[in-house]
């Protein structure tokens, strides 16, 4: 389906916005001399190229039409993202077992067809397997059980 503002238009906006941010941050990087190009040269060149590409895509979509974007799925998007971040927040302090239970359950909320009884069995199997693989066999420095109250919680609750 051809539309006025779709995939290309949105890509163009994304490229242009990133390029402008990079230009802004990179504005005070030293440029050096032509003989000794400095820290800022390549970031500047690349940002301008990216900006150009973005503008081209926006123009093209307006002039010649565009492909419609598919619907965004917010539920798995937020579930998986939150689960990943949570994993990072608590793995050090709460250990493998609790981290797996919490983060994988949140990730499972992202699937509309999760069968919770099946999931519970799956989770236990995964926990035993992960303990055997990562801690017992590979000796990764991950605690199995909680060690202390996570930092971000102490931050909120004193």
């Amino acid at each position, binding site marked *: 389906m051809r539309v006025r503002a779709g995939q290309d238009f949105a890509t163009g906006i994304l490229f242009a916005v990133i390029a402008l941010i990079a230009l802004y941050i990179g504005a005070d990087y030293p440029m050096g001399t032509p003989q000794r190009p400095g820290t800022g040269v390549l970031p500047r060149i690349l940002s301008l190229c990216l900006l150009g590409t973005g503008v081209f895509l926006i123009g093209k979509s307006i002039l010649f039409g565009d492909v419609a974007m598919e619907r965004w799925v917010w539920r798995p998007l937020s579930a998986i993202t939150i689960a990943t971040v949570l994993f990072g927040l608590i793995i*050090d*302090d709460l*250990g493998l077992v609790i981290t797996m239970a919490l983060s994988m359950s949140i990730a499972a909320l992202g699937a509309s067809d999760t069968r919770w009884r099946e999931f519970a069995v799956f989770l236990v199997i995964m926990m035993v397997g992960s303990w055997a693989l990562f801690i017992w066999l590979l000796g990764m*420095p*991950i*605690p*199995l*059980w909680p*060690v*202390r109250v996570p930092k971000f919680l102490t931050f909120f609750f004193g």
Partner: protein
Amino acid sequence: MRRREFLGRAGAAVAAGALPLSGARAAAWPDKPVKLILPYAPGGATDLLARPWSEVLSKVFGQQFVLEHRGGAGGMIGTEAASKATPDGYTFLFTPNATMSVLPNLRKTPYDPMKSFDPVGRAGDLVTGFVIHPSVGPKNFKEMVEYAKANPGKLSYGSAGLGTATQMRLEMLKFKTGIDILHVPYRGSADALNDLLPGNVQMMNEINVLPHVKAGKLILLNINHSSRNPDFPDVPTLTELGVSDADVPIWYSFWAPAGTPKEITAAFNAKIVELANGDDMKGRMRAINSQVPVQTPEEMRAYLDLDSKRNADLIKAANIKLE
């Protein structure tokens, strides 16, 4: 590991309350595996020096001395992690002087080498020197200096990176002899060696060049150390060459997070000294072109202070800047 730290903290607290005298506590240490944090990725020079230590220490103490590599940000990430570890005698830092006496003079570090760590023992000094590619011409140190004076800026020198001790060695040489050599920073010494062997850069100062000197592919000009390298008995030290106070040592050492029980660091130091004097360790270190000087923790602290001041002066004199 975190669990062990937690248990260790509890154990240390109990022990601290129980016994004022050192004997029993130091004798009990270590009663579980000890972690040595290395602030670089596996496979580099730090790893190379740490391996024989971890192996021999594990043997004599009867507990595993485990290496944990925490590379990144020029060694800052691993060093910071070690500074924040529980000071219970079960986590130590194994590092070259770059993170302790060079980096803190160049940029703000999230640790203070003087305050965040207690000295434990010296682990080895590298006994190497400047090499030059044979295609250039000079056959010894004097000829190299003459060549560089006659052709200012023509020679280039590859270092393991900005702000590494190998760059400091070049800056010191330039400063002391007044010659002009172009500094080219690389991402690690292997990367630099790659450009040195075909002669894209002409000079370097690292331990990984020595096998190529033996094979006749490079010429060793001098030794940057207080004594000669027994494998190259004919190559003089800088001092012998009349360039005094020009050594920039590259030295490796053990450090404990500040607050580690003194009995433990003392016992650890005693064992390191004993091993360093033994023929086994001497032989292992010689194989990787290193020597282990013997120092008490107090001497080591003073040595760090001296080394840090020397690097600070050099950085100022040579106008080296990061950030």
